[in-house]
């Protein structure tokens, strides 16, 4: 099932992270299933449980199905000082989910993450590959509504 991805990378252990990224990106629900781990384990000859350890260490990977758009809100101190708690409250309310939950329509998953490296624009979040900074309630409404409209 993942032959196309494996073709891109030689079976070297160093390629684990890249392969996992590709598998996750390819999946409509942005996650890595047990079957996928099993195939990667065979391909790279890395024990299954090691890959599980890597998957759960990095917040960017998920072992459970997620929404079409994964929101990752920074919870590091700079964003916290600039009001990330308010952003979180607003997101929870707008989307009607708790942390690590997916909206009923399957459109959004709300997650927290460590520093995204753009502290100058704190508070910051990422939706899939796009970064959104200087967040406030109004901005959040605009972003969420825009994505909902694209559906």
């Amino acid at each position, binding site marked *: 099932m993942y032959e196309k991805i494996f073709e891109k990378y030689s079976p070297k252990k160093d390629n684990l992270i890249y392969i996992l990224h590709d598998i996750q990106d390819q999946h409509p629900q942005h996650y890595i299933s*047990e079957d996928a*781990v*099993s195939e990667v*384990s065979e391909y790279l000859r890395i*024990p*299954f*449980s*090691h890959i*599980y*350890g890597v998957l*759960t*260490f990095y917040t960017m990977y998920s*072992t459970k199905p997620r929404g079409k758009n994964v929101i990752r809100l920074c919870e590091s101190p700079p964003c916290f000082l600039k009001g990330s708690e308010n952003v979180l409250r607003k997101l929870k309310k707008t989307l009607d989910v708790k942390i690590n939950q997916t909206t009923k329509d399957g459109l959004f998953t709300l997650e927290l993450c460590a520093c995204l490296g753009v502290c100058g624009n704190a508070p910051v979040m990422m939706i899939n590959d796009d970064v959104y900074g200087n967040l406030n309630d109004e901005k959040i409404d605009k972003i969420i509504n825009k994505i909902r409209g694209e559906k």
Partner: protein
Amino acid sequence: MTKLIKVSIDGLEVEVPDGTTILDAAKKAKKYIPTLCYHPDLKPTANCGLCVVEFENMDATKRACSTPAWEGMKVITNSNKLRKLRKSLLELILSNHDVACPTCDQNNKCELQDLANLFNVDDSIFPKILKKRPLDLDSFSIVRDSNKCISCGRCLIVCQEIQTVYALTEGGRGFDKVITTSFDKGMYDSPCVNCGQCTVYCPVGALREKNHKDFVWEALLDKSKYVVVQEAPAIRATLGEEFGMNPEEVTVGKMYAALHKLGFDRVFDTNFSADLTIMEEGTELITRIATGGTLPLITSCCPGWVSFMETYFPKRAENTSTCKSPQQMFGTLVKTYFAEKEKIDPANIVSVSIMPCTAKKFELARPEMKDSGYQDVDYVLTTREFIKMIKEAGIDFATLDEQKADNLMGAYTGAGTIFGATGGVMEAAIRTAYFVLVGKELDDLDIKAVRGMTGIKEATLTIPTKDFGEIKLNVVVAHGLSNARQVMEWVESGEKDYHFIEIMACPGGCVGGGGQPYGSSIADRARRGISLYKEDKDLPKRCSHQNPDVNKCYEDFLGKPNSEKAHKLLHTNYFERSKLNGEIIREITHKH
């Protein structure tokens, strides 16, 4: 030669080889540095931080367990700053630990408890941040209590590097970090082979065996049940150390006495079926050599190894001896041979075995282990559980008068007793195979090349057989599953050509089993092995084919070794298992 360096530990100069850790240098200077995650048998994980030290000539603290010493370093092992640091670390660990000492299996043997006590730690200083997780109870052998886990990482090193099983792994990070199995599914749904080495090395009781003790008590106190017990060779080499006796003493007579006192109706000995195993497995080896059967032959006494083979090297099933383990042979015979002889309804027999092993708990539950028409073995007690039972019954073990095992399945030879140490099965098999092939006993029964704690022991034996001239037998003994893996890789690549292979899953063999006392180190294992070899030396009969009870069992019941009846009752078959969760994929070998 390694360069020697001079270091000062609390002002005391010592010379150590370059590369020595600060902790080892301090040991040489006879200076104590407290440790928790560190274990001398294992690579340091440097997780707990308790071994921090300071320096006279440098403003830093470093972890002694994992920092190599350097020329001219001046270590301070204790100071007010270090005491405060260590105390805070212990307080932090306790804030995330289920402090349930009175009910904990490892109470009084817990390394965290000892340290907390020594440092006068107050566990209420930090608020509890422990997020309770359910116990992992599904495995046949091992119970995992994540609430007690302090993430020291010892079990990971054992499971991944020493055993190369990879059942346990780290999941999550930061406060959410846990030692777990893949996808958090529990030990039952992992490739765990039930060796139980994780339980031996866990410092805090987060990993322990599945308890059978209460079931055994229930059977003992039930007048309608006839309770029969067998004890593995390793048990007698271990009990002494736990009851304040000379740890080198083999306490076989006292062990029988304790079992009679506990109320077992018949006290037999697994050493009997160890001798029986040699008769069956030795015959199998000779037949395979004589008829050009599949070689190398690999021993099958160790259920940890059998699961490992089924999971990682299923192609080697055809090489693995079809013999059941001594425990299972014994169990089958108790409910057939013994029941028949004594005219007892096997349905009323409860067959208990006392093993240094957690994998035996899995083995007894294998669905194919029912050749007697009943579950062949009902309960397995680990050494730890047995010790608890003796204490619970208030038996003063050290002062017991020595007794003998009961007749019929109690006699054993030196060959049976050395089964408990790595290389023992090999040595016992060679003694009997030599006798059968040559027609006389070996001049020197001690086969030193296969003894000792070296991970992989190879030897070539020249046997002047009476039927096919002089043959050379290449044998190898491996203990610890990483060594087993290495030997299997050699076999599969054709790099080495062996005829006979002994494998034990646990380092040191059964004396180092997963059911042995908590904290059993490599040194403890080596000592117990030596005790068994000493017992062997002192026994009048040292070869399995001389065992009177075994010979009688063949005469009266089984016929001859590898007879049809023996095959039906004493042999088994193997399965291929999934590397992901240990589930049976298919049957590979079939029972004939």
